C-alpha cells in the first residue's frame, strides 16, 4: 500500500485560505466588509432598527430625511431606515435559500448528466439549455404566476430561474475532470462510481459552483426586488426592498426617498457581492474553470 500524504481537502481550502486571501486587496476588504455588515444587520435587525418596521404614524407620513427618521418616512409614516434593515432579512434570506436550493438541485442534475452521459445527459441538457436561453425574469414570472404571489413562490421562482446555470456549470466541471489522469488512476485502482463521484469529482467541482452561487445571490436579490416591485413577492406589511419600491411608486413625486434608498441598498449589496466574488475567483485561481462549456 502506498502511503498517500493527506493533503487539505477542497472544503478546508475554501473555508480557510482563499476566503481570507480574498480579503487581502482593498477591494476585497471593502466589499467583503460590506457583505459582513449586511448579514450582521439582517441577523440583529430587531436590535439595530430605531423604529418598528410596521408601526404607522399617519401624522408623520412622507417626511423628508431628517432626525429622528434619518432616511425619511413612507406614505404610512413608517420609518424607511427600519424597513430597510428588516428588509435585509427578507431579501438576503429569500435569495440565499433560493440559491441554496438551486445549487443543490443543479449540482445533482449536472453531476448525474456529466457522469452518466448518454440519453439522460442529452435530455437534461436540452431542457436546461431551453430554460437558459430564456430571460430569468420571464421564468420567474411564469412560476410565480403558477404558484401564486408570495415569498415562498418567489423563492422557488428564483431557484428555478438559476437552476440551468448551476446544472451547466457542474456538468462542465464533471466532464472536464472525468478525463483527468487522477480519475483514470482511481478507476484503475478499483474505486466504485459512487466513491469517485463523491470523493473526487464533486469536491473538485465545488469551488467554481460556490463562487457562481455567491454571485447568483446578488442576482437573486435583484430578481426578488423586481418580483416584489410587480407586487408578486413579499406581501404587506412584510418589509422587502422590492416591495418598498413598489409602494413608493405612487409617491414618486411626493417622497422620492422611499424609492431611492432601497434601490441604493440593492445596488450596493449586489455590487459588493460581485466585487467580492471577483476577488474570490482570483484568490482561488479558477477563472479558467468558470466557463460553462
Amino acid at each position, binding site marked *: 500500500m502506498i502511503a498517500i500524504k493527506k493533503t487539505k481537502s477542497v472544503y478546508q481550502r475554501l473555508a480557510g485560505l482563499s476566503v481570507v486571501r480574498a480579503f487581502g486587496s482593498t477591494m476585497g476588504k471593502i466589499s467583503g466588509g460590506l457583505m459582513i455588515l449586511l448579514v450582521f444587520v439582517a441577523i440583529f435587525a430587531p436590535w439595530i432598527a430605531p423604529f418598528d418596521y410596521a408601526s404607522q404614524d399617519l401624522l408623520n407620513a412622507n417626511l423628508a430625511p431628517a432626525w429622528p427618521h434619518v432616511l425619511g418616512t413612507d406614505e404610512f409614516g413608517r420609518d424607511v431606515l427600519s424597513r430597510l434593515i428588516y428588509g435585509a432579512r427578507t431579501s438576503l434570506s429569500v435569495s440565499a435559500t433560493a440559491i441554496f436550493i438551486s445549487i443543490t438541485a443543479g449540482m445533482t442534475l449536472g453531476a448525474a448528466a456529466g457522469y452518466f452521459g448518454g440519453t439522460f445527459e442529452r435530455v437534461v441538457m*436540452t*431542457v436546461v439549455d*431551453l430554460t437558459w*436561453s*430564456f*430571460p*430569468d*425574469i*420571464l421564468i420567474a*414570472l*411564469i412560476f410565480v*404566476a*403558477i*404558484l*401564486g404571489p408570495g415569498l415562498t413562490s418567489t423563492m422557488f421562482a428564483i431557484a428555478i430561474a438559476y437552476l440551468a446555470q448551476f446544472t451547466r456549470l457542474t456538468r462542465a466541471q464533471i466532464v472536464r475532470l472525468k478525463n483527468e489522469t487522477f480519475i483514470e488512476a482511481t478507476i484503475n485502482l478499483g474505486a466504485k462510481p459512487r466513491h469517485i463521484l463523491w470523493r473526487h469529482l464533486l469536491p473538485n467541482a465545488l469551488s467554481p459552483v460556490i463562487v457562481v452561487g455567491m454571485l447568483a445571490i*446578488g442576482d437573486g436579490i*435583484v430578481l426578488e*426586488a*423586481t418580483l416584489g*416591485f*410587480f407586487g408578486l413577492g413579499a406581501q404587506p406589511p412584510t418589509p422587502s426592498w422590492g416591495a418598498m*419600491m413598489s409602494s413608493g*411608486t405612487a409617491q*414618486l*413625486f411626493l417622497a*422620492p426617498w422611499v*424609492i*431611492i434608498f*432601497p*434601490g441604493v441598498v*440593492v*445596488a450596493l449589496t*449586489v*455590487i459588493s457581492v*460581485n*466585487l467580492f466574488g471577483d476577488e474570490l475567483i482570483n484568490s482561488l485561481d479558477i477563472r479558467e474553470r468558470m466557463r460553462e462549456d
Partner: protein
Amino acid sequence: MLIPVSIAISMVVFMIVHLLPGDPIDNLLRIGSSPEDRALMVAKYGLDQPLFTQYFLWMGAMFQGDFGQAIVLRRPVIDLIGQNLPYSLVLGGLAFAFSSIVGMLLGTVSAVVKNPILERFVRGFILLGSTVPGFWLALLLILAFSVTLGWFPVSGAKNWQSLVLPVLTIGFGGVALVARVTRVALQDAMREDFVMLLHAKGLSPGVILIKHLIPHALLPVVTILALRIGWILGGAVTVEFVFGRPGLGSLLIRAIGQRDYPVVQGCLLMLALAVMIGTLIGDLAQASLDPRVRENKS
C-alpha cells in the same frame, strides 16, 4: 434542431399555462350565474376537452395563424399581439442597437486607451450597469428627466420622446454587458501571436486595431449579442411595465394577472420564438465571421 425545440417549447408553454391556479371562466361569469351557465361557457372555450386534445387543437390552429380568442379581452389573440408587438420591436430594436454600438465603442476605448482614470470609470460603469435593477433605474430616470427637468413624458408611447428613457434604461445594462465582452475579447486578441507579428511588421496600431483586432474580437461579442436578444425582451417586460407603454411585456403581465390562458400562451410563444431566432441569427453571423465555423458547417 429548431423544429424539435419549437415543439418542446410549445408543449412546455401549453402545460405551464394550464397549471396556473384560478380559472378565467370565473372572471367572465356574472355573480349569481348557475352551474349550467358555467358548463356552457367551459364548453364554448373547449376547456372541457382532455388536455391532450386541447393541445393538438391549439397547435393546429397555431399553424394557421390562429392563436385563439382572448378570454377576458374577447378579441383574437393574434390581433392583440399584432397590436402590441410593433411597440416591443421598436423599443427592443432601438435598445439593442444602442447597447451594441455604445457598448462596443466603450469596450474598445477601455481596452485600447491605457488611462487609469478612464479605465476605472469604464469598469465602474460596467459594474453599475450589470447590477442596478432595471425598474429602479427607470424610476430614477423618470424622477430626474420627467419630473424635475420635464424633458420627456413620464409614460405612454405617443411620440419619439417617450422612447428615450425606456431605451436608455434597457440599454444601460446592455451597454455594460457588450462593453465588458468587447473589452475582454480585445484584450485576449492583443495577446495573440499574430498581433505581435503585425506589430513587428511595422503596421500602425490603428490599422492593426481596425483591420485585425476588431474582426477577431467580434466573434464572442456577436455571440453574446445574439444570445441577449431574449434578455433585451426580458428587460422590455419590466421597462414597459414601469413606463406604462403598450407592448408584449405589459400584455403578458396583464394576462397573467387575469389568467387569460390564450394571451399568455401567445405572448410566451412569441418571446420564445424571438429567443430562438436570435440564437439562429447569432449562429449565422458567427459563421460569416469565422472561417473555421463556416468550413465545418459545409
